[in-house]
């Protein structure tokens, strides 16, 4: 992709989402900004509570409100701002121009309707295909995601399919209306590793065939390594690092990314020492006035406890939210 052809399909600015709970205000997403380019595969990596899912759910206003509230932000999709358009218009986008795949296909498929009905319903709502044209299209979609004997499968109920097959149906449904963006939230986490490999293979093939932009949310740095063009690392409701995939893994520029990569055992290596990231994940009840990783960070300085670092551009398409310049071993502020 050359610089001139790059076109942004989704531009998110300063997204903030909170949840008002009995125990206090949970600051789930704190000022997240990123963009997605046409045809790009963007990985979003983070542990539980990092805000990666809430970010995506907020974009399509799928979080329960209340207790959830989108405090601020803008999400440009074409000439629309997803966060401010009418619900009517948003519904046309959801499942139409933006497809979704969730972690657990059993809870996102309706158990009392056949697979075929559910795919065709999406075609009925979002395309102008006639009733007669919908069934062949549904069959074609199942073929596309590698489901054998598609005609018979259209008549199956979700419980008659295995976990891997259900996830393929979800992918077929998400792709039903030729979306511009496909958002996948931990789509392989509930699957066994040999089934995960099947799904990843299908997604790879589909990307080449369809050129859809994909946002793939996961806690598994391994899965993203083989799929993504660019990766965002989230921690404590913020993006802490953004980089092209090869650079992120070979030369992380945020202490959290570095620690996370060091704590992962590798299938192709033996005898490495696993790095401990000391301490526990961040407390989201506190106002994000300081760096959320500072209590666990080996490079922590006074400034980190006083001021939350913004996501700073450090060149070569990379950004990091850290006051310590890991490349040059010096603080990033002052002289």
């Amino acid at each position, binding site marked *: 992709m050359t610089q001139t052809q790059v076109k942004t399909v989704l531009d998110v600015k300063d997204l903030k989402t909170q949840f008002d709970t009995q125990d206090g205000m949970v600051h789930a997403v704190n000022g997240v900004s990123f963009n997605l380019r046409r045809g790009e595969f963007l990985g979003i990596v983070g542990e539980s509570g990092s805000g990666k899912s809430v970010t995506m759910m907020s974009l399509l206003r799928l979080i329960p409100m209340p207790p959830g509230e989108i405090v601020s932000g803008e999400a440009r999709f074409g000439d629309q701002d997803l966060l401010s358009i009418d619900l009517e218009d948003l519904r046309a986008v959801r499942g139409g121009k933006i497809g979704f795949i969730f972690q657990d296909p059993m809870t996102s498929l309706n158990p009392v309707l056949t697979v075929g009905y559910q795919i065709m319903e999406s075609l009925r709502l979002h395309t102008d295909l006639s009733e007669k044209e919908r069934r062949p299209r549904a069959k074609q979609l199942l073929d596309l995601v590698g489901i054998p004997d598609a005609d018979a499968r259209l008549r199956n109920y979700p419980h008659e399919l295995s976990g891997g097959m259900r996830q393929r149906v979800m992918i077929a449904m998400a792709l039903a209306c030729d979306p511009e963006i496909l958002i996948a939230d931990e789509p392989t986490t509930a699957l066994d590793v040999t089934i995960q*490999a099947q799904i990843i293979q299908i997604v790879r093939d589909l990307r080449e065939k369809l050129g859809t932009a994909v946002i793939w949310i996961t806690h598994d740095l391994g899965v993203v390594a083989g799929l993504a063009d660019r990766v965002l690392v989230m921690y404590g409701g913020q993006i802490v690092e953004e980089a092209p995939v090869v650079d992120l893994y070979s030369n992380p520029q945020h202490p959290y990314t570095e620690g996370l990569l*060091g*704590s992962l055992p590798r299938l192709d290596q033996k005898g490495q020492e696993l790095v401990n990231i000391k301490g526990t994940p961040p407390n989201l009840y506190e106002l994000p006035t300081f760096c959320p990783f500072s209590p666990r960070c080996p490079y922590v300085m006074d400034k980190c406890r006083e001021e939350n670092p913004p996501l700073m551009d450090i060149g070569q398409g990379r950004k990091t939210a850290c006051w310590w310049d890991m490349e040059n071993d010096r603080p990033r502020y002052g002289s």
Partner: protein
Amino acid sequence: MAVETSDAPLAPEADSADVIVSVEGLKKHFPIMRGVFRRQVGAVRAVDGITFDIRRGETLGLVGESGSGKSTTGRVILQLETATEGVVLFDGTDLTQTTGNKLRSLRPRMQMIFQDPHASLNPRMTVASIIGEPLSEHNKARGESRKKRIEELLSLVGLEPKHANRYPHEFSGGQRQRIGIARAIALNPDFIVADEPIAALDVSIQAQVVNLLEDLQDVLGLTYLFISHDLSMVRHIADRVAVMYLGKIMELGTVDRLYNDPKHPYTKALLSAVPVPDPVVEAARQRVILEGDIPSPANPPPGCPFNTRCPIAQERCVTEVPEWRELEPGRWVACHFAEQSDELIPIS
């Protein structure tokens, strides 16, 4: 898969090593009941005839996908489930034939760490009473010495004495797993079954718990059966690995040789399916993508359980159950074509 090649010397014969647990022909079938009279109409063959040894002081990794029978294996070894058939020798005693006080007197020597630290700790008990319960139960310590032992155990697992009077809900997932580990080592066991001990934890916490398990093994001379679906972590922690599929062990060997040079088609496929957190390696890797799903253990295919998905299955694999044989010293495999698998499935 072979990113590095192993020049490790041949592993010693299993017989010559000091064996602590010896499993022979172990089966566990759960009956399926139907109808008004609850007649047995079938059985889930969770574990279907497995044979292996665990050597003193080693970590044996037991890997497999869901439904492969790896957890049931761990539970049957500890007699938390009764075996349908087969022998479990623990230091020479057949546990399947041992009951009552005799079995109870052996229990302190074998313990378990569970997957879910939320479900395996009683929310109404303080940390001190959770860790102290095995001490009282087996009359190992009371009063002041019990209190001292609890403090000692807390510091062994990286918690502080002040934590003793708190309740489980006051701790994070990783800390709770530490409490479960403290309980498991309270009675100075020889052998611990760790059933997916890190599966419920965040990535950054997993390394903490695994490092703790390794340190404790060094200090206390423990033997682990480490049950996990995480093949990368098993490579890190284990000395030898057994790969299960549909109630049977497909392959067993030292970590280096099994990961660098798998002989069973299932092991080859499984290892090639695990993502490596390195984009450069990932881009260059060749994969064996298996077709289809894992069959139900209630209705396993005839012959080799893997024949429905195996890329090199032949007529013989459907008619004849492959023998569990020692391919080379210390390397066991259940496949008719293990010798030819490298030629037939070239991925390395």
